[in-house]
């Protein structure tokens, strides 16, 4: 589903990603762990097409498409989703309208019929309920006045409604209490199928107790320094990054 080959990227003159090789097969969930400043968020932004980063080398294939040649909206339409670490507020833009615009933009690009307001609202309300979101969250402005946990749930709601082939969750666990963590984990697990892949970026093992990954990769200094199974996350938690990175070097 996702093949990253020798990916180098920088912001301004500063190199952040220094040769990432990573493959996420269809239907698998991979975790990326690493200390602050290792390039985790940069990887998620480069994959989703944020303009501030310059790719200096490498290529990325997403479902057979040359991902790096596509503008951000085309990547989303092709089935890539990024759950933001810090979801952006859109004052004056209603959450339901925003979500419906996104869903229909994606459906249009995929050649599917658009949802009318009633069809959309019915589906969105059902998902919001599953995520235990208060009813008025669809009526409020996008992420405006949302608590940290509400913002993250709103990301998962968007993800569920957009039905991506590959979701990148960028520290979706940060700012979540234990209950919210479980709700978000259940939300992701509900999407699990042989057609759905995910890249779960996290500092901590705890999200991976809910979303058990097929593989865990350790990112340090812009490179994957170690890969392993779900037990690698537990080893990291027990030993700390420094030792694992030192062992890998």
């Amino acid at each position, binding site marked *: 589903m996702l093949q990253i080959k020798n990916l180098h990227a920088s912001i301004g003159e500063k190199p952040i990603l220094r040769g990432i090789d990573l493959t996420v097969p269809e239907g698998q969930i991979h975790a990326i762990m690493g200390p602050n400043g290792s390039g985790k968020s940069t990887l998620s932004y480069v994959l*989703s*097409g*944020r*303009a*501030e980063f310059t790719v200096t080398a490498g290529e990325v294939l997403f479902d057979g498409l040359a991902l790096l040649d596509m*503008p*951000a*909206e085309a*990547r*989303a*339409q092709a089935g890539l*989703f*990024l759950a*933001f670490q810090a*979801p*952006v507020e*859109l*004052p*004056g*833009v209603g959450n339901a309208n*925003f979500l419906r*615009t*996104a869903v229909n*933009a*994606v459906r249009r*690009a995929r050649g599917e019929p658009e949802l009318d307001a009633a069809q959309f609202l019915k589906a969105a309300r059902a998902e919001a309920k599953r995520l235990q979101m208060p009813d008025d969250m669809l009526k409020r402005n996008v992420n405006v006045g949302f608590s940290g946990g509400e913002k993250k749930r709103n990301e998962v709601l*968007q993800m569920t409604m*957009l039905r991506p082939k590959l979701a990148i969750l960028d520290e979706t666990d940060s700012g979540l209490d234990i209950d919210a963590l479980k709700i978000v984990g259940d939300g992701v697990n509900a999407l699990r199928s042989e057609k759905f892949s995910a890249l779960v970026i996290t500092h901590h093992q705890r999200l991976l107790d809910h979303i058990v990954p097929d593989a865990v990769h350790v990112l340090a200094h812009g490179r994957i320094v170690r890969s392993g199974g779900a037990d690698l996350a537990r080893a990291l938690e027990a030993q700390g990054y420094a030792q694992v990175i030192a062992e890998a070097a």
Partner: protein
Amino acid sequence: MAPNSAAGFLARYDGLTRRLPGDMARRQEAADILRSFGLPTRRDEAWKYTSLAALDEAHFHEPLTEASGFAAEIEPELAGFADLPRLVFVQGRLDSAQSRLPETAAVHGFAQTADFGVLARPDRDRLVALNTMLAEDGAIIEVPADADAGTLLLVSLGTDMHGTPTAFHPRHAIRLAAGAKLTLIEIFEGKGTYLHNPVTEIVVGTGAKLTHIRLQNESMAAFHLATLYADIAAGAAYEAFTLSIGGQMVRTEIHAHLHGAAGHAALNAAQLLRGTQHSDFTTVVSHDAPGCTSRQTVKHVLAGKSRGVFQGKIEVARAAQKTDGYQMNQALLLTPDAEIDCKPQLEIYADDVKCSHGATVGALDPEQLFYMASRGIPGEDARAILVRAFLAEALDVIENEAARALLDQVIESWWRDAP
């Protein structure tokens, strides 16, 4: 010819004198003012940001031919108002065939009554002088005491004459007696190059309420120079919203005089400009009585090399204690070459008042655009959504649903045509 000499207009006046209705002494006085002082230039403080130099080059002519076929063309746009009474002006003249008079309000033609009113004075304002000199027709709308006159449409259409620029100077008056109510939806549209120079006198009597929604959607080649003087009595409300979207050179100048206790004036506006359009929204709110409120939210969305101007003056007289005045001017610059000029002015002589004003200028937020793109929303749609969100605060005060729908539709199509 010196710039802004008004010579072309004076020559036209000399040729028309016998045809013009009403008090010739008044017109002569206006002509003398223009002969002595010309039209305003950028050396005039109030015209610092807006130049009328281009007026001199256009050589406007008297509109001679009837162009009433035009009225039918904009019919689809007015579908939301199908059942409403309407006054249609073509080239500044009332087109009776296209008009349907209201039941509750009395309407007279300026061509018959030459009712200049008392508020707009040539000696204070040279665009009023220009209008006073050349006004031929206009709508004099009067709502009797305690009557609710519902909603009335005032449609003004302008065109050139086979490529020759025209000029017209309608003189309107809207007067509400005590306790009366009216919603006036004013729509300006046109084709080709012309000068539309309306002057409107507005009188809102004690406890009366006038809601005035103005859609300035003139031809992109048009000059639109509108001046409004509103007198607001005790407990009365004048709530105006202007959407300025058409015209190459536009100035809307509104004077609101709160002369009775607990009066209210709202002078809200949005301007959407592109290309080389220039649009100036200038307001003067005079608080002359205690306990009055005034509100102004003015939003500019500027693309291309367009230029938006907002000048807003709030005057609070010594007697106007407990004044509550608010003014906010916000501009969204969509391109590096767009420009906004903003001049707020507060003149406060009372000591117990609450007056606030603010201004912001910014571009669309790249982070918001990326967030929307990452949800599959194409850039054009994302920008449109953010612009609508920016405008929402100014537009949300409009309660009339049909008017709101029309404005939304105009904004939507502006967006489709924008650069």
